[in-house]
């Protein structure tokens, strides 16, 4: 059941992502599975669980795309930059269209923090833990 939440969310996102981008997300990420487990444990509508998990996946993959830039290959570099930009833009589109706007107030500071950390040269290893904490807080507050 929990596995299905992650897979269903992936299917939803792969359908929403514009075909021209050629971006395909996959579920081989343990931290995303942990997030899916946590979100799945809340007593909220399944569509909301999918929206929250979608935004988490998008921010996580979007950040990764910009942290692993292959500067020696101009085509791949351009794609990685565009992919990251597109996925982050999609967070806003998904949250708004599925009426989960308040979630953005949690995600935006995390996204900003990642940029500040990256510019200082530190990795963003702890960011998934922080993301999980913020999402938990959000769901505790808005799952009633």
């Amino acid at each position, binding site marked *: 059941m929990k596995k299905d939440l992650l897979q269903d969310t992936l299917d939803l996102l792969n359908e929403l992502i*514009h075909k*021209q*981008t050629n971006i395909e997300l996959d579920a081989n990420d343990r931290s995303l599975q942990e997030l899916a487990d946590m979100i799945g444990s809340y007593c909220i509508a399944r569509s909301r669980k999918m929206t929250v998990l979608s935004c988490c996946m998008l921010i996580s993959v979007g950040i990764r795309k*910009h942290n692993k*830039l292959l*500067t020696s290959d*101009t*085509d791949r*570099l*351009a*794609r990685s*930059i*565009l992919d*990251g*930009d*597109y996925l*982050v*833009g*999609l967070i*806003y*589109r998904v*949250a*708004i269209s599925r009426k989960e*706007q*308040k979630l*953005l*107030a949690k995600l*935006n*500071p995390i*996204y*900003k923090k*990642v*940029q*500040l950390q*990256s*510019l200082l040269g530190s990795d963003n290893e702890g960011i998934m833990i922080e993301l999980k904490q913020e999402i938990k807080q959000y769901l505790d507050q808005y799952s009633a």
Partner: protein
Amino acid sequence: MKKPLHEQLQLSLGEINELLLHIIQSDDELQRSSLLYTSVERLIMAGGKRLRPIMALVGGRFGTSERAHLAWKVAGLLEYMHMASLVHDDIIDDSPLRRGEQSLHAATDISTAVHTGNYMLARALEWSNEDELIDEDFYMGAELAALITELCVGEYDQLQHRFDFNITLDQYLEKTKRKTALLMGACMSAGARATGADEAAANQLYEFGEALGIAFQIQDDLLDFTSSSDQLGKPSGADLRSGNFTLPVIYALEDEDLKALLLQLHSGASDEQFNEVLEAILQSNVIDRSRQLAEQYAIKAKSIIEHFEGHPGQHDLQVLVSYFLK
């Protein structure tokens, strides 16, 4: 001599620049001695026409004066989104210059420039929500941020059509809408919505801004053919050399002689080959034809002004059209 656009609209570029600086200066998490701060400051001080904030502020004149400060929020956010996208575009297009100065990634490095662009978006959204009710204003900012997906699809489109000799006018116009016109339309309508203008007016203003955006982009694409590198502040003919085929090339492909020359081009073609094509295009009628299409879009914008007959903001829309028709 005609006054600059901002003066004709009783707007101060100094105030707009102060607003843009305020967005980073008011970030408690950012140190003024940091590379990030100086990089963003440098981008702001490099100047620019500030068309997007100007359009947002003009859009804001169609609402109520009590909410005018919210149009300034929209103006700041949209200009930051625009500047951030230029930083990333310069990397994607491998452009070492912007407005005659080193582009950010050339002055720093690619990773710094990418994260600086990202920070600018995040900070502008955060700032647009400060001191306001989350239920109203953050959502408007988020709706604008969602437009990034469309800007990106325009960029993907451009990448996928490099040296594509089959590119059509419709494809060019679609890409132009996504890359430029949509954001200009959003500037007008978001400025109007933020200040409480009615939905019908906001929609008309979107159409107006979109039409002007297409006219603007066509003229901007023309400059790549008609201006010198010194005038542009970057190498002339850069679009053609990178295989980004704009309107003059699409029209040139309709001419058998020009088409034969164009078909010889590829990413490894020599400077002489590119220069020969640039010269042939300049000598042909395609530049005039392109200008005529830009004018048609400006005229379309002009026709929308009629919907605002008697409104005090109507004159400002006329000023914008005259500017884009020049």
